[in-house]
């Protein structure tokens, strides 16, 4: 029997799919881009100002935060223009939160594809992250505009920005993939996601600098993995006027890696039943 199996290049058996999984993911690599391209294309066909949405949203939030935290509450900013302080954090947060909520619905939105065509399911939630990466790059333009307006020169730390963007990307993929799989099985997560996004913004240092957190609570505060990412972004853009709390950053990185691992593991574990239960 064993030599006969050799003739075949695919064996479908219960629990066997994982053996060709990563190969297939590679074979379908273009699908990542095609799905992302589709989502972007559809968005710009369906909305009137399309592109502008990815600029307007963070920009308005930035103004509100600047007024509330900078002007009214008078939080410290260490001489950095408050809009830049806020916007530097707004970018990664916006990226993460939209990835998270888009990814959570991605499988349900594509349910007809899940039940009719085979391809590695991981592609669907991950491609929503790519869409948001495009948005991120567009809204980055605003940051450059702000810097010009305030005559603000970023520090050399900015060369590390891609590293922290990578970290934000991994956080988004890890949590997005996890929530997407959970949402197929338990539709309750549809209601949990907006709550997490809203709540997460308050407990992340978006409207304020994390320097206002008392030293003894900072490690606890860093249990939120986005704290490390956002602080990293600020550090890259604002330079030494913003400080990185190293134990907290390491904790965040550890949690992010764990999240990615857990997310992919859970997704892989449940994805073979997606077509049956969706």
């Amino acid at each position, binding site marked *: 029997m064993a030599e006969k199996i050799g*003739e075949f290049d695919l064996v*479908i058996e219960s629990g066997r799919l994982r053996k060709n999984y990563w190969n297939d993911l590679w074979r*379908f690599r273009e699908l990542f881009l095609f799905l992302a391209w589709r989502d972007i294309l559809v968005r710009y066909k369906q909305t009137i100002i399309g592109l502008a949405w990815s600029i307007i949203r963070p920009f308005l939030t930035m103004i509100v935060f600047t007024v509330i935290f900078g002007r009214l509450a008078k939080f410290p900013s260490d001489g950095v223009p408050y809009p830049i302080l806020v916007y530097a954090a707004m970018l990664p947060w916006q990226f993460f939160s939209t990835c998270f909520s888009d990814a959570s619905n991605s499988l349900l939105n594509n349910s007809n594809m899940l039940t*009719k065509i085979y391809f590695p399911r991981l592609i669907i939630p991950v491609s929503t992250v790519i869409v948001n990466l495009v948005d991120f790059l567009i809204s980055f333009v605003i940051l450059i505009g702000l810097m010009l307006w305030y005559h603000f020169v970023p520090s050399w730390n900015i060369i590390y920005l891609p590293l922290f963007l990578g970290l934000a990307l991994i956080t988004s993929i890890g949590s997005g993939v996890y929530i997407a799989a959970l949402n*197929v099985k338990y539709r*309750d997560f549809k209601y949990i996601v907006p709550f997490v996004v809203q709540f997460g913004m308050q407990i992340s240092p978006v409207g304020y600098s994390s320097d206002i957190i008392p030293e003894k609570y900072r490690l606890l505060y860093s249990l939120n993995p986005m704290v490390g990412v956002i602080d990293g972004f600020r550090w890259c853009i604002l330079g030494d006027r913003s400080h990185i709390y190293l134990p907290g950053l390491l904790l965040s990185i550890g949690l992010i890696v764990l999240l990615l691992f857990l997310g992919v593991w859970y997704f892989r574990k449940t994805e073979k039943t997606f077509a049956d*239960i969706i």
Partner: protein
Amino acid sequence: MSVVIKVEHLSKSYIIKHQGQSEYVALRDVIADKVKETLQNTKNFVTIKPIIKKPEREEFWALNDVNFEVEQGERIGIIGRNGAGKSTLLKVLSRITEPTLGRISTKGRIASLLEVGTGFHPELTGRENIYLNGAVLGMHRAEIKNKFDEIVAFSEIGKFLDTPVKRYSSGMYVRLAFAVAASLESEILVVDEVLAVGDAQFQKKCLGKMQDLSREGGRTVLFVSHNMQAITTLCSRVILVNKGAIIQDDETSKVIQNYLMFETSKEGIIEWNKENALGDSNIRLRAIKIMDQENKIRNHFFSRSKIRIQLDFEILKLDYLLVIGFDITNEEGIIIFRTYQHDTNQEEWPMLKMGSNSIYCDIPSELLREGSYYISPKISLHAKKWIIDGEPLLSFDVELNHGVSPFWSFYNKSNRPGLLSLIIPWKNVY
């Protein structure tokens, strides 16, 4: 010839939950169940009762120990009633869902077309969807580019290439979808009941394409359809599935004969009650009756007498486009003719009214040859949509007894080629 698909002891079970109607699990239920279970177990433990769980879930075997092999270049039809397990089989073959037990070994790339235009996005244009759908099926950009003109030519969408597909007719939609899937360079092509949507001409074109792919390209085709004629045209071998198991796996004509014989009602009548009647919000089919001229239900006729077919139905919305009729199919699955209530002069059309209606027609005598015939109801809104595109549901036999000429002997009668046994008068030319 080598084996390209080998299916061994393939089974697939689904869990049907008896409690809770929701199709998906809510977190609340999981938590509640766990708590209930723990409480019950504790209670049982305290009161020293054995822990027995009531079966709240039942296993349903959609596929049950299926075995078959397919050789390269074969064109195989899969037939069976709705819910027989055909689609599940294709889903497992296409790796959409995992088998519970057993194994499938395949050689070569598999392209499946289980639904028309899966992955098509209505907002995108035909051109954009070709690329998207190609990628979904696993094609690379360069590959799609190479095939692009071929796809456009085959689908005949021409000037609508840059129109969003939401504006397409369902026929154009299928054509495009089929064209993309057929252009995929796969060794195995799996096609579910998708051609039913397209028009007859396009169906023919698709069947032809599949035939070419297998004859010239050496590709293997698995084809599910309710259309016996399409199966007969395309397939050399047919697998009959019922209740998740293979009933018969043989030459096309044998399997189709068997299917028609065993799967149709031989009572001469088939009735539905209000709940399970076929149809939609316009019309519900309640009965089909085969009768003689005295309105007695029969399933055996002599060719010298007429055969009366009566349809009982309920009209819920009176639409002047409503077209009601049936197909008569022979043992090979070939449609002998189709008849509709509106085929004649307008003055002769039967009146339709709201509520229950019964209409009938008489199949002329001295027309059908000896054999078994099958009736498939066909009801539609003319050129708009199918309401009932039925499969053969009931059967009757015809025994030849017309014709008195000694040259039209019994032997001659049943061995003469042709689908009909007409006696046509000949005359001299003066």
